[in-house]
């Protein structure tokens, strides 16, 4: 079902780094040296950025949210090892993260053992348990890809999620299992009492895991995962068993999912049924897809965007899920490459040195478009407020403006903003289209 259709599943150019960073005319020697430095740059920048972020955002909630992003990043990258790299659609991947996390919680509660290890290595245990489970499940689920794999993953996911309330000894029932991370052996004197210390631990693990997963995609088995995804039969006639290639990808993905589970355990010090259930598995699918499965860094963007949606947007509006749903529909309908695909679309224009030509048309179209969409959102919020707010409670606040939702004026303003904004966007769209093709065509005067 999923990976038999070569035209579509994976957008063309699934390996951005190679395409972008190598110049076809150069000899392979120079190319290797060049790509080495080029590949290192984003990692260094990311590491530096992660290091200084806490200086910019000092409050605990920002740290907590950034930690949540980091965990989601690791998990989404692990998930993309299956979906993007290996063409396997899983509906139950949360269980590997969950089981890894539960194992870490149990280790936290083994006071003697836990006191003898530094907290920083705990995610390794999570990874090992996630990997162990993946080895068992993978032994029968990776025999084929497509629907069979997807449905087995769904079934196994449901089973293990159901076990979480039945097998109380390991999963702790509805209350889950909790522990205290500070009982670990201090790591160079750090006891991880404060959120900031946990932040650095998590950030370090994100860099390490992301780097390892990136490197994995450059190994023989990682390369063959792509080959099997695109054309399992051809891969078989190259001497590789599709099944075992999938199996190794699956096990590796299970390991990193388990690492994400371990990081979760450290951050929240509690694991519950929600870490295993199908909703979590579905969320990670959405996150990965939103970011873009065709690019290594896609899930990273997806994780950041989704965490913001879920955690921050839900602080502002009860309708966050409505907007999230709309965003997913819009993404899948108009940008199937995800947010990463959207970004990478602009690479040719940059390479041609014509990206500048897009700036003005973008402003002309996207700005009114954004205003129109915000106007639409305002209308939605006002309708919601009108319908569901308490009697007499006519005042509402959106976009830092407080007004009476039962009077006509705000409706006219919001409606007009929507119409005008979207109208202008529509009117200027052809110009943007022209500019786009202009910016993406090689040569040409001007």
């Amino acid at each position, binding site marked *: 079902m999923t990976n038999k259709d070569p035209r579509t599943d994976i957008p063309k150019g699934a390996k951005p780094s190679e395409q972008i960073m190598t110049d076809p005319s150069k000899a392979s020697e120079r190319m290797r040296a060049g790509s080495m430095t080029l590949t290192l740059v984003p990692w260094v920048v990311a590491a530096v950025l992660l290091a200084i972020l806490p200086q910019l955002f000092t409050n*605990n*909630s920002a740290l907590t949210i*950034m930690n949540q992003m980091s965990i989601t990043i690791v998990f989404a990258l692990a998930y993309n090892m299956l979906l993007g790299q290996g063409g396997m659609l899983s509906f139950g991947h949360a269980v590997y993260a969950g089981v890894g996390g539960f194992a870490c919680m149990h280790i936290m509660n083994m006071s003697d053992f836990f006191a003898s290890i530094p907290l920083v290595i705990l995610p390794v245990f999570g990874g090992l348990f996630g990997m162990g489970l993946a080895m068992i499940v993978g032994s029968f689920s990776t025999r084929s890809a497509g629907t069979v794999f997807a449905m087995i993953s769904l079934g196994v996911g449901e089973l293990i999620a159901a076990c979480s*309330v039945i097998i109380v000894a390991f999963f702790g029932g509805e209350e889950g299992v909790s522990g205290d991370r500070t009982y670990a052996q201090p790591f160079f004197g750090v006891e991880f009492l404060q959120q900031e210390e946990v932040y650095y631990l998590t950030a370090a693990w994100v860099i390490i895991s992301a780097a390892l997963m990136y490197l994995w995609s450059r190994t023989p088995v990682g390369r063959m995962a792509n080959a099997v995804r695109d054309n399992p039969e051809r891969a078989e006639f190259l001497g590789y068993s599709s099944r075992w290639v999938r199996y190794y990808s699956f096990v590796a993905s299970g390991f990193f999912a388990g690492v994400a589970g371990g990081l979760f355990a450290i951050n929240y*010090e509690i694991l519950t049924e929600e870490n295993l259930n199908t909703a979590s598995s579905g969320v990670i699918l959405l996150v990965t897809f939103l970011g873009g499965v065709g690019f290594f860094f896609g899930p990273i963007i997806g994780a950041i965007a989704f965490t913001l949606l879920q*955690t921050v947007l839900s602080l502002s509006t009860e309708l966050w899920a409505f907007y999230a749903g709309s965003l997913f529909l819009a993404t899948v309908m108009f940008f199937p490459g995800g947010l990463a695909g959207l970004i990478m679309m602009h690479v040719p224009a940059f390479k041609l040195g014509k990206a500048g030509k897009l700036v003005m048309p973008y402003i002309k179209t996207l700005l009114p478009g954004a205003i129109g969409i915000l106007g639409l959102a305002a209308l939605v919020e006002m309708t919601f407020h009108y319908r569901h707010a308490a009697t007499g*409670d006519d005042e509402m606040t959106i976009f830092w403006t407080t007004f009476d939702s039962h009077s006509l004026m705000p409706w006219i303003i919001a409606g007009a903003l929507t119409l005008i904004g979207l109208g202008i966007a529509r009117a200027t769209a052809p110009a943007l289209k022209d500019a786009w093709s202009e910016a993406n065509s090689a040569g040409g005067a001007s």
Partner: protein
Amino acid sequence: MKNITKLGAVSALSLIIGASAAFAEDIKVAFIDPLSGPFASTGTNGLHQFEFAADYMVNEKGGLLDGKKIEVVGFDNKISPKESLIQLQVAIDQGVRFVVQGNSSGVANALTEAIDKHNRRNPDSRVLFLNYAAVDPALTNDKCNFWHFRFDANSDIKMDALTDVIAADDEVKKIYVIGQDYSFGKAVSAAANSMLKAKRPDIEIVGDELHPIGKVKDFTPYSRKIVSSGADAVITGNWGADMLGLGRSIIENGFTGPIYTYYGAGSGMTAAFGDSGKGIIRLISEGQVNPPPTPEASAYYDAFSAKYPEGNIDQTRISNTIGMLAAAIEKAGTADDVVAVANALEGMEYESMWGGTLFMRPNDHQLIQDMHIAAHTNEGITYTFDSSDYGVLVESTVEMASKDSESSCEMKRP
């Protein structure tokens, strides 16, 4: 690329968090419960009741400590422990010192542990956890801590009161216990078994079973067993869709005896049971709505109905929570030092407008109060639920239920 996105994202984040951190004057109460998703109705209704209680009982009467107002801020935890912990952190950063939560003992458990750890690790920003509805007995027993106060009766207390009433009814010979397969369902089942055995050894428990929580589509097979068992009464701790599904199915398949429920009213359930539940559905709860216990309560309910015509006051403990918190803050003379407020709450006796005296037991922070058994009916109802003709009418009352019950709590005080 990702770095730019991340930068943008984080600045947006700080903007939003920063934007709402402006009112430091008010006493902020964080309401951490589901406001979206399948349990949103209970959560939203609870938030309305809290907001209303704060406005009506405190703010409109001039506030506390020379005019400070109580501001209830809703945080959507999507009934997820993980989200609850994130929202807790956000709330604390916004200067919140009091957290209220009630839906799901799992979430309550996560919160009470997290708050205990937070208060230990950050003595400067300690918070209190006012639990208004999570009834897992463990929270005031093995898992109790100084920062947690429970304003609802725990499931053992409710069962104690319920079995008192059942024990007095000689007609009841056979009882069927059914619940959701998780800690609370198991606690209800265990308590029913042990208490009935102690109070009425002649009653036979003809069925005692658990079903998967939130997964059962059709309760017919369970109701068949209940009907076939010849039970005179059913006890269930089910809530939400599981409660309604079970109740409707049992009635539909021919059961006519009483169904004693913990959560069989409000949140659309009363309307959905309608005529079919009349004389069958019973509710064990604190607080009395019908007949109205005091003129004060009537005035309160009228004002609430005027504001939320579709809302119910199905959780009278919410106004008790706000009332006792306000009293404790006044007594402590501070809203910032939560230890002082906690000390004021401990052992507090409070006259509730819903009738009776409330007593916050100091040894385990469990509120002791009157328990009522009410029936689902349309006769003699002053305040209906769910904009229907039906409501719950108190039939019998157990005063200061389980006042002297045991608790295994070993309270560690700061």
